[in-house]
């Protein structure tokens, strides 16, 4: 056959057309769900090591393991392995009823013994559970029939809430003791909706549906979660049809892609917030400066301009779906008030107050740009802030050492929505996560840690939030909105904790 220039051209065009048609298209029936995830999964044991307290990977764990108490997509608490629970009358004991008829992925029955063992193991400091400080507040954990009881060592009002949060997973006693930590890491089994079929570290995890799942078999029988950490690559994954679902893409790309045929988008407020820590040092000891800084920020403008409207402005460290959220607490945008407050302390646009604000750059969507915008707004009222960019690792180090700059941008996650895990740990001086040392706040928070009357406890935290807002001890900025893109054949139910759960995905 003679190959002329024209025939070569024709062949090339035909090949191109064939390749375009022959590759994954949005309308095709989906047998194997492919998700392009934004983070990698470092290790499988969800109860030990640094991974256990990484909120961004809890979706992997919740696909394979069951939490003691699950959280519904709206963050309300459901019935899971633990179907009922509570304290005895004098709150010296806890009790939990374990669901019957549940099996592990290897077919063994899940019993109350497994729950008791998991809880005892979690409370043992030698195992390396980072949340041992909570689990260690009960001891003498016993299983009788399908009921588990434990003695309370120190009353912890959020104990059961932690059972839906970091490290709150039930692990298989018999299997774990047989294979040991290394064996479990190599071949993890749980009781969750999916079983691990294949795991290539830093590449993907392939999950197979647990047809015997107590909550009903998942709709997608095989799910591959690819670890695609680069946002541009995730955009390409969904746009090319190589993946069916992805998340955490830039908001501009989210708007562009969801407008295309064959791609749907859902954006949901999640339990992560953006905030500015205030360290009570230097000029931050002056309440007028702090208040002026807080009132000079037009949060909604920042959300609209920088985040394409994807965000919810907040004035306390509680989001609207947290239990201690109080909509009456407001810190309004009022630049005139800021000028007046600064003038009272001898500052003006001609003689601005100066300090440093630290921020990450690219760790969260538009983090640096938001701080730039805030610094611009501050300049108009008489605040001259110098931006210092740091890595998140440095933030942790400085925060733990109480050495953050006078102001520092950070994001805070609180999937259980309890005020202790937001305002509590962020604002209680002795906490390694707090840089605020003010005595009034300390005195207000201290009695709330062990408050046994739940209504009184929540009211107490609302008062703390009101005081913190009034005294401008922290600047809450926004509740983040998580963008999720999916091809039209897949319906995604977002979870407000931010965990992307394949179990909640169905065919549409």
């Amino acid at each position, binding site marked *: 056959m003679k190959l002329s220039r024209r025939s070569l051209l024709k062949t090339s065009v035909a090949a191109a057309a064939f390749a375009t048609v022959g590759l994954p298209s949005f309308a095709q029936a989906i047998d194997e769900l492919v998700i392009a995830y934004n983070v990698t999964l470092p*290790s499988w044991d969800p109860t030990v090591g640094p991974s256990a307290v990484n909120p961004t990977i809890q979706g992997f764990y919740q696909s394979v393991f069951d939490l003691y108490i699950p959280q519904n997509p709206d963050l309300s608490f459901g019935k899971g392995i633990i179907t009922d629970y509570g304290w005895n009358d004098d709150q010296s004991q806890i009790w939990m009823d374990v669901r019957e008829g549940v099996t592990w992925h290897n077919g063994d029955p899940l019993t109350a013994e497994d729950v008791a063992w998991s809880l005892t193991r979690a409370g043992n400091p030698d195992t390396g559970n980072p949340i041992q*400080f909570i689990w260690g507040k009960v001891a003498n954990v016993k299983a009788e029939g399908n009921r588990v009881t434990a003695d309370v060592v120190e009353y912890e009002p959020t104990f059961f809430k932690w059972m839906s949060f970091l490290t709150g997973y039930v692990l298989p006693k018999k299997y774990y003791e047989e294979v040991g930590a290394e064996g479990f890491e190599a071949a993890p089994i749980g009781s969750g909706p999916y079983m691990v079929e294949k795991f290539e*570290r830093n590449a993907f995890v392939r999950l197979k549906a647990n047809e015997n799942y107590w909550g009903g078999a998942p709709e997608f029988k095989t799910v591959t979660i690819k670890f695609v950490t680069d946002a541009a*690559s995730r955009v*390409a994954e969904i*746009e090319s049809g190589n993946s069916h679902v992805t998340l955490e893409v830039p908001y501009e790309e989210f708007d562009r892609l969801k407008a295309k045929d064959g791609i749907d988008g859902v954006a949901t407020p999640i339990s992560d917030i953006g905030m500015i820590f205030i360290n009570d040092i230097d000029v931050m000891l002056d309440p007028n400066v702090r208040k002026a800084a807080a009132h000079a920020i037009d949060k909604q403008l920042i959300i609209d301009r920088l985040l394409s409207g994807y965000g919810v402005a907040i004035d306390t460290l509680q989001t609207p779906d947290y239990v201690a959220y109080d909509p009456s607490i407001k810190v309004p945008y009022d630049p005139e008030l800021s000028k007046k407050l600064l003038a009272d302390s001898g500052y003006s646009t001609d003689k601005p107050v100066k300090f440093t604000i630290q921020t990450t750059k690219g760790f969260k969507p538009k983090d640096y740009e938001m701080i730039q915008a805030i610094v611009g707004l501050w300049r108009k009222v008489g605040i001259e802030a110098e931006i210092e960019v740091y890595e998140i*690792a440095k933030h*942790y180090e400085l925060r733990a050492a109480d050495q953050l700059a006078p102001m520092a941008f950070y994001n805070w996650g609180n999937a259980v929505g309890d005020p202790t895990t937001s305002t509590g740990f962020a604002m209680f001086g002795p906490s390694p996560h707090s840089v605020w040392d003010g005595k009034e706040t300390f005195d207000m928070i201290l009695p709330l840690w062990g408050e046994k009357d739940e209504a009184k406890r929540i009211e107490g935290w609302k008062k703390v939030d009101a005081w913190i807002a009034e005294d401008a001890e922290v600047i809450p900025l926004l509740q983040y909105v998580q963008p999720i893109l999916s091809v039209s054949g897949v319906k995604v139910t977002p979870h407000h904790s931010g965990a992307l759960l394949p179990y909640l995905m169905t065919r549409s």
Partner: protein
Amino acid sequence: MALLRSFLMRLISTAITLFGVAVIVFVVIRVVPGNPIAMMLPPGATDADIARLQAQYGFDKSIFQQFLIWLGDVVQGDFGTSISLRQPVSELVLNRLPATLELSIMALTIAVLLGGAMALLGTRYRGTKAEGAVDIGAGMALSIPDFLWGLVLILLFGVLWPIFNISGRISPALNIDFSTNFYLFEAILRLRFDVIGDLLGHMLMPALALAIPLAAIIAQLLKQSLKETMHLDYVTLARTRGYSEHSVIIHEALPNAVLPTLTLVGVQFTFLIGGTVIIERLFSYEGLGNMAIDAVINRDLPLIQGIVILFALLFTLVNLVVDMLYVVLNPRLRHA
């Protein structure tokens, strides 16, 4: 004998280099901000908890003491345990090394073929529009960094005309148990053409992104070198004997002109391996580079140390091989 002496000298200098790298890396990553312990503190951590964690990972000792302990372990082949992945560092890096090596070798092969072809084309058609096109192409290829080439390739061959895979090293659905982590080499040996196709489908774009700038460098240098060689007497003599221009370039000029390029390729290959860090991240390719970024983000000090030492070892070995090859290929050095 001279070759052996040269080889031994290089081995000694390699050992010294590695020791220097170990010292610098060990000290630098402990001096830069970002304490791994601070990153893993639970919300209610007390001073005692912090002290316990520091002792657990050996951070309660002085940097000098930590270094001596680490060096003692390294000498025995123990690079410690990764903080974030909770597995032995040596196992982790050795499992990943084959992926990076395969990618780098593929990129180098593409770069040499592409760059060599461009140089030969430019030389054969020197003074014509074809040479101009080669120069412009090489200039463009060189002026765009590899990660941008990666993005361009993703857009072209991942999205607009999706003929290659955008992410990963192998399709998760592919059912094959490898005995080694050299997937491509093993698939070739086992004649698993389906696997070879799948691996190439994943590897070609990142390899091409790494190869394009290097190909441009090779093209420019080899073309220049060929140009100079083409004016030498022995080449003119070959022409007068009636050899075709094609034959003169390939058989007479190229063997001499290739030597400077070889040295450059050796040096550039180490840069190419360095470039895998970003490219592997972009293509979610499960190599050492991708792991290195995670290690840095997580301040996983033992893993960072292990990866850097391995990269340093690779660099020095590549340079050693290139130097030895240069001696072997260059008759003046060979007979010195």
